[in-house]
């Protein structure tokens, strides 16, 4: 019996020290066969509806052998979770004779001990053909096998748990990486920053289905968005990442929020995950005027907080992003134009108003407005005010019910600046060519401006400076300014006509020429129809095209980059 004890202790130690249960079991089967005087033994593990051999010892290597769950003496042992000692296997009704036939083996006696931990069936260890003594397995053999089975069962169960834990740990780490990348997609939340547009995001889980973003455009206006993807899990986080990227990418190209949302919708629908959608608000705010253009695709109504202290809700203009355009007609999302006049606009996800401030008590729209009002009268800046709302929702100590995201566009400070005349006019900075030995090739100045008459004076200033820098004389500079002004006027008056939009102006120095690219996003104009007028016919209007052709060396309508809008290239050679 001391040999048997020694074996058990040794096996226990091996199981504890190694993850390789199969190697340990092979050795154990070898030792136990010797001790019992058995011809061989095998360990079977229950995998679904089958028992699969994972370790064996004896004349035939049966590792990998698979037996149906209920078949044979071993199947019976596992099903009943009871040990079996069969002295005459051939006459046992459960005996599985196929094995003997397949391997040309004669099974005489079987000793089998099931492996289980609590209620979990793990498998069984089976010994065959005792050849010492009277050739019959006895109670001592069974006790030993049962002890070994118990210790093997525990080792296998532990290993499985360790595996699951490791897998869970890998998942957890991957999730954390995903969250990190996701945070990187959001603008930073800086309480100190003196910016009129800012936001907060507090995910309910590790990753979030909400996002906000904002960035400054060339002319000082600020593009912004806030969106809520249906769901909160990894799928929502992935769709969020896609939508956020689309906004960043298309938002710099298309400055009309209604059409931007239309384009994002088309892109999302092309590859959308079924049944997922995004409620989204996009807009452009101009700190120089307080004017704000907003488009809302199915999102919670944003709140305008007027200087009179009143909150006004703005309803959604279109269904959410992710609804196929063919179902909705596919037009641009309707836009709304606001003049903040020193007030503020709050855009938020329902996680903000439906979050709990105390167990079972939602913050609600009133609570939201109250925190904002109190923060404002307490002199808090926009970032601190919305952080106050987010903190109130986290204060209960409970996990958030839903992601909380809030974006604010606060016109208070910009209005003050406008009143003291410190217009936040975008500065046009030309690259300092005088400081360079070699004149710069490429863009000297690029800007995006609203296609309005008021923008022209900025265009003239930029063209005037660029032409002067390029060495044109005073008269030529004046001509160039006139020509570009006229080309922009055509965009404003003819391409956009009664609609609103933007124009991109890129002033470049290329191959010994000053090149001005003027791009708009209006419907395409019929280039053939543009003709300079006959100067003998004295009448008002129609002179612009003549001026442009007279001044420039080359005027060409190019196909616009993505087939949208119009692109005009004006060229004037630099005379050395």
């Amino acid at each position: 019996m001391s040999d048997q004890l020694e074996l058990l202790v040794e096996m226990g130690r091996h199981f504890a020290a190694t993850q390789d249960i199969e190697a340990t079991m092979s050795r154990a089967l070898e030792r136990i066969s010797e001790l019992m005087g058995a011809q061989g033994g095998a360990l079977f593990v229950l995998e679904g509806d089958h028992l699969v051999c994972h370790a064996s010892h004896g004349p035939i290597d049966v590792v990998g052998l698979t037996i149906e769950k209920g078949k044979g003496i071993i199947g019976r042992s596992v099903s009943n979770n009871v040990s079996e000692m069969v002295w005459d296997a051939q006459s046992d009704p459960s005996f599985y004779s196929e094995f003997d036939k397949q391997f040309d083996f004669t099974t005489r006696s079987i000793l089998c001990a099931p492996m289980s931990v609590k209620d979990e069936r793990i498998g069984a260890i089976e010994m065959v053909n005792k050849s010492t003594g009277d050739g019959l397995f006895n109670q001592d053999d069974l006790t030993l096998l049962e002890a070994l089975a118990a210790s093997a069962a525990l080792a296998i169960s532990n290993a499985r748990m360790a595996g699951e834990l490791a897998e869970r740990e890998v998942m957890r780490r991957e999730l954390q990486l995903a969250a990190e990348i996701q945070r990187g997609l959001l603008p930073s939340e800086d309480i100190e920053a003196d910016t009129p547009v800012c936001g907060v995001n507090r995910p309910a889980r590790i990753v979030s289905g909400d996002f906000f973003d904002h960035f400054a455009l060339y002319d000082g206006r600020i593009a912004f968005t806030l969106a809520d993807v249906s769901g909160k899990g990894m799928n929502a986080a992935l769709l969020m990442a896609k939508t956020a990227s689309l906004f960043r990418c298309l938002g710099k190209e298309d400055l009309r929020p209604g059409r931007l949302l239309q384009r994002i919708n088309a892109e999302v629908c092309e590859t959308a995950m079924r049944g997922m959608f995004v409620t989204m608000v996009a807009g452009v705010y101009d700190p120089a005027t307080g004017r704000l253009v907003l488009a809302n695709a199915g999102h919670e109504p944003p709140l305008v907080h007027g200087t009179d202290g009143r909150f006004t809700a703005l309803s959604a203009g279109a269904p959410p992003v992710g609804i196929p355009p063919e179902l909705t007609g596919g037009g641009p999302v309707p836009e709304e134009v606001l003049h903040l006049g020193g007030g503020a606009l709050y855009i938020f996800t329902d996680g903000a108003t439906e979050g709990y401030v105390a167990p079972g008590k939602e913050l609600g729209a009133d609570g939201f407005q109250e925190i904002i009002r109190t923060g404002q009268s307490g002199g808090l800046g926009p970032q601190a005010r919305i952080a106050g709302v987010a903190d109130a929702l986290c204060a209960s100590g409970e996990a958030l019910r839903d992601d909380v995201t809030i974006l604010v566009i606060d016109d208070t400070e910009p209005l003050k600046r406008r009143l003291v005349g410190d217009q936040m006019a975008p500065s046009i900075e030309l690259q300092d060519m005088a400081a360079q030995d070699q004149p710069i090739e490429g863009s000297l100045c690029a800007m995006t401006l609203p296609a309005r008459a008021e923008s022209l004076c900025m265009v003239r200033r930029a063209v005037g400076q660029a032409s002067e820098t390029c060495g044109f004389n005073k008269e030529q500079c004046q001509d160039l300014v006139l020509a570009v002004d006229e080309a922009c006027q055509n965009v404003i008056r003819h391409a956009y006509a009664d609609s609103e939009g933007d124009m991109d102006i890129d002033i470049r120095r290329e191959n010994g020429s000053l090149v001005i690219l003027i791009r708009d996003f209006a419907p395409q104009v019929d280039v053939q129809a543009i003709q300079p007028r006959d100067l003998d016919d004295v009448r008002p209007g129609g002179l612009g095209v003549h001026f442009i052709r007279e001044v420039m060396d080359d005027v060409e309508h190019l196909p616009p980059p993505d087939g949208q809008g119009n692109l005009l290239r004006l060229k004037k050679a630099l005379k050395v």
Partner: protein
Amino acid sequence: MDIALQDQGGAVVVAVSGEVDLSTSPKVRDTLLDCIARGSAVVVDLSGVAYIDSSGVASLVEAYQAAKSKGLGFCLAQVSETPMRVLKLARLDQVFIIHDTLDEAIAAVA
């Protein structure tokens, strides 16, 4: 852009200064057509104009045509270098009556 009106010797002198562009030319046009509608001969003083575009030029052309059809005098005076260059580009320096001094202009239209 600024516009100053002054009755002088039987004509209205409309002194335009600053930048005449798409956003300001409608005001020039309205002012000129207004004077003509009231039956005045008009002298447009362009000495203070720093910039004028095709829409500004078009306002002048329209006013000139309106004056002609009513048999009223209309001329330009003291055209500074910048607007003169634009008028030349449009070949309109040969169409408008242009005087170097206000006195000459007033004497011609009144």
